[in-house]
């Protein structure tokens, strides 16, 4: 890299050092500290907090969080892929408005949108009132404060993160490949399965990572739409800082969450690479 290049990236490096590396190191340091009876942090370099993480109670919360994040990711793929595909198939001038429609909700703060869901779904909310008026139900349905509501909130919040990367990869797809497939007698479904899907996997992969990681740390949705009845890792960490006054344990949990995310991402990319290698080989053979 030449001198100009170094000069150009200096602000970015400085930014990352000050706002990412240093805070991260502080979190790491605190995770090896202890808590005094009044909640102060004392640095005595102990593994105690990581030991606590291994207790079944906390491991089960991590497990539960992984399950929720996994289901959220699968649902967003299943919903996001068709939608992205649909938008990519639209005439060029309708594509941009289509994408913007997916994003307009983001102009409103997420917390407010969560409360909007509460107003829609609660016992005397919009949906129940409509259903009762229409005579479809006699008693209001309990739509809120359960796992289904948490899942709905998660998928709602994260769906656009899946749509966008998939859209990009579909849009970049070389259509001549599909024409060639059709010329060679492949049915549309076969062409989709053998060409479109493998070639748009990078988009799915990017979306999966974005959605999975974001859902691991979610704590607003379980609180607002889940009635704070379940504990996910995000809530557990929040509690350590805001009520248990146990920063060292909260830090250790944060580090474990980060490490876990990293390991999963690496494993995920490895698997994809192997598959991609296989697909490339197949292409060569063909």
């Amino acid at each position, binding site marked *: 890299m030449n001198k100009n290049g170094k000069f150009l990236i200096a602000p970015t490096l400085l930014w990352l050092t000050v706002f990412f590396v240093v805070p991260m190191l502080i979190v790491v340091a605190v995770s090896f500290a202890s*808590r005094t*009876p*009044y*909640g*102060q942090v004392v640095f005595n370099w102990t593994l105690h907090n990581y030991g606590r993480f291994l207790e079944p*109670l*906390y491991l*089960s*919360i991590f497990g*539960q969080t992984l399950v929720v994040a996994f289901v959220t990711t699968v649902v967003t793929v299943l919903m996001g892929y068709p939608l992205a595909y649909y938008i990519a198939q639209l005439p060029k001038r309708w*594509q*941009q408005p289509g*994408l913007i429609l997916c*994003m307009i909700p*983001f102009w409103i*703060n*997420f*917390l407010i949108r969560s*409360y909007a869901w*509460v107003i829609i779904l*609660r*016992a*005397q*909310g919009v949906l129940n009132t409509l259903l009762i008026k229409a005579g479809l139900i006699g008693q209001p349905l*309990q739509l*809120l*404060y359960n796992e289904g509501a948490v899942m709905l909130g998660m998928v709602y*919040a994260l769906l*656009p*993160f899946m749509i*966008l990367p998939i*859209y*990009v990869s579909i*849009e970049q797809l070389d259509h001549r490949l599909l024409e060639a497939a059709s010329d060679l007698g492949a049915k549309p479904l076969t062409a989709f399965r053998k060409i479109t899907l493998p070639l748009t996997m990078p988009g799915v992969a990017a979306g999966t990572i974005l959605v999975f990681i*974001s859902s691991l740390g979610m704590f*607003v949705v379980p*609180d*607002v739409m*889940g*009635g*704070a*009845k*379940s*504990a996910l890792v995000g*809530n*557990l960490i929040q*509690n*350590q*800082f*805001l*009520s*248990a*006054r*146990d920063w060292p344990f909260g830090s250790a949990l944060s580090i474990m969450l980060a490490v876990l995310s990293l390991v999963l991402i690496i494993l995920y990319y490895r698997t994809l690479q192997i598959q991609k290698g296989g697909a490339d080989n197949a292409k060569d053979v063909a």
Partner: protein
Amino acid sequence: MKKLITLLLCTFVLLLGGCGGSDKPQKTAADGQEQVLNLFSWADNFSPKVLEDFEKKYHCKINYDVFANNEELLAKIQAGGSRYDVIQPSDYMVATMTKLNLLEELDHSALDNTKNILPALQHPAYDPQGRYSVVYTWGVTGIVYNKKYVKTLPASWNDLWNPAYKGRVILLNDSREVLGMALKKNGYSVNSKDKAELEKAVQDLRKLSPSVLAYDTDTIKQKFIAEEAWIGTMWSGDASFAHKDNKDLAFVIPKEGAVIWADTFAIPKGARHKDLAQKFINYLYDPKVSAANYEYIGYNDPNAKAESYHSEAFNNDPMLKAAKDYISKGEWIEDIGEALTMYDRYWTELKTGK
């Protein structure tokens, strides 16, 4: 197109990032003439008119910063509390801050009006001599219920366990309040550090949890106003608020006893404008001022001399009255030190259903 998407994605991440707080109290008076009072408090905790009047009377400017919970307050004060002149820790936090040597001793000779505070609030357990704090807002945690659905008047915490209310119970989203309630139900102290007593309380709460609609502190009022919930635990001040919007709501303090709580005024160590801070505190306990102030806030007025300045509606508010009648019998939540970790563990167990 790709650029557009990158840009939009970046915006998403920023928007999803959530909320941070501004953190820039003014260090000194702007022009040397006008003093600045750096106030660090809960959001919407004063009548704006009362603050304005104080600014005019003492030719100063109030710089009002807000925190959302006691832990945030503590963290900021530990990081350099002298930037603030007046802070509003809750009861147990006063004890913590006192032990950590973070509070200035108040000079009561400059706080004449604080003599107006109800005698029952003059010697709270967390600061028995009132050396570091004075009570500002206070209340009692009782049972709120909707008369449309709850036909028998609840008299005991046990009534929350009534199977008729399954799926309609709301508890505060606060480990100390909820575990404290269950301890109280069994006749124990809300500050118990006894493992057997806590186990018993947690066992009871486990039986209650299938009945719980939600744990909520911030929007609990809305859940009762919209009649999502029928019965639950609530602070008297919030109950009074909710009652204004839904007249079917009623409030009762169970026979086993209840938690009394307060937010206070205190001055952090090294405050730059201690004089002005004391003037401010003193000003707010002037009977007329406090009447105007608490009419706006809607919580119990601790001022014994303010009653004649309050509206009839305020003086006759059933929720505020219930709290006031109970004032000397409530038990304060205290800082339990090491045992807080145990409480948090039980709380997590309860939430995970383990």
